[in-house]
């Protein structure tokens, strides 16, 4: 769902392909909902090894990042720090990844190339940049960690 609040475009998961129609290059958008961190190994696992993701990201969002998570005494998790890594490393897997998982939003750092662009057009997905180096702002934006593995 795409909602507007105080002039801000906010995407709420699950995201439909139509929700992306009003989003344009250069827009600042906010995300509210489920976000799964996922880097080289997860991409490889889905695309090269043909295995599924342990978390269903269909119509949801992924972040190219490796977070630092602390397990509290009561078994709950706390986000210590998280931030995007160079997305270009995932470029060669992204077409197959989007096709297979049905993810709608990819957040990362830097830029992507043709493979990702093609996937975005064909399957309805967008690539966004989270300003890197802001690990504490990112950690502070996490409401709850559902699962850590």
């Amino acid at each position, binding site marked *: 769902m795409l909602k507007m609040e105080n002039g801000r475009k906010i995407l709420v998961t699950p995201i439909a392909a139509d929700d992306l129609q009003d989003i344009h290059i250069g827009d600042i958008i906010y995300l509210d909902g489920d976000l799964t961190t996922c880097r080289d190994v997860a991409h490889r696992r889905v695309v090269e090894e043909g295995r599924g993701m342990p978390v269903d990201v269909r119509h949801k969002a992924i972040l190219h990042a490796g977070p*630092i998570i602390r397990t509290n005494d009561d078994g709950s998790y706390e986000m210590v720090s998280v*931030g995007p*890594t160079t997305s270009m490393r995932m470029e060669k897997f992204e077409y197959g990844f989007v096709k297979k998982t049905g993810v709608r939003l990819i957040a990362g*750092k830097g830029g992507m190339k043709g493979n990702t662009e093609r996937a975005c057009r064909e399957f309805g997905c967008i690539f966004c940049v989270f*300003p*890197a*180096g802001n690990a504490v*702002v990112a950690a502070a934006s996490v409401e709850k960690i559902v699962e850590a593995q």
Partner: protein
Amino acid sequence: MTNDAKVKLMTDRLAEFIAYTAKKLPDDVIGKLRELQAQETDPLPKVIYETMFRNQELAVQWDRPSCQDTGALQFWVRAGAHFPLLDDLADLLREAVIKATQEAPLRHNAVETFDEYNTGKNVGKGVPTIFWDIVPRSDRCEIYTYMSGGGCSLPGHAKVLMPGEGYEGVVRFVMDQMTTYGLNACPPLLVGIGIGTSVETAALNSKKALMRPIGSHNDNANAAKLERLLEDGINNIGLGPQGMGGKHCVMGVNIENTARHPSVIGVAVNVGCWSHRRGHIIFDKDINYTVTTHTGVALSC
């Protein structure tokens, strides 16, 4: 104070200072980011700068490293030939890194090459990296600390040019690197350029260039001119903060140079990201310290 007590004090002070630099950027970087922020008018770069400053505030408030990548630890040590702990310096730097890694905490960024396992302590074969200079007739020890992140190390490149390519060749080399890789290194960037003979002389100069304060200039007039021209040239690529477009994408261009063999010009480029975690601490023979990069540092030990 006994030698052992001095070693312990210096280790503790360094560990605390290293952890501190992961959380707070040096004064010159903050000042430059503020200056660049004030010049941006579009909403996108403005939001990015606001996020950066909020992040730096939160990092201090929550006592956490400001960027998740706390880099590979590198030190440039300018040790006085009469500094009393010369024997112990390499070991104590290693200890300080292990301690800072636990206490900050810093991300584990030391992977043993070929064996490909992470030591989990930020130390390993030849790591932390130490660049040594011996300063004659001095009993002080000056240490530049640096966290070399993955994203900002990636654009690093060195090449030996034929002299016929001249300084135009240097400019072309630097601009090619910046247009290809600048985006992923988290601009606005500090660009360090080294000029020398072979690749490692140029590369070492380029790292030392990154330790020079932002806004300082090479004392050679031509080199200083090239710094300014390259700064304009790279800004004109238009990357802006985080590569999202904007008026400026560099915090500065610093060139360090040494003489060269007449048949070659060695050139290297090395990049520091907006989160340029450089520190500079000077110890006297009694391990009293002075920090020049960050005002208001009061170590607890």
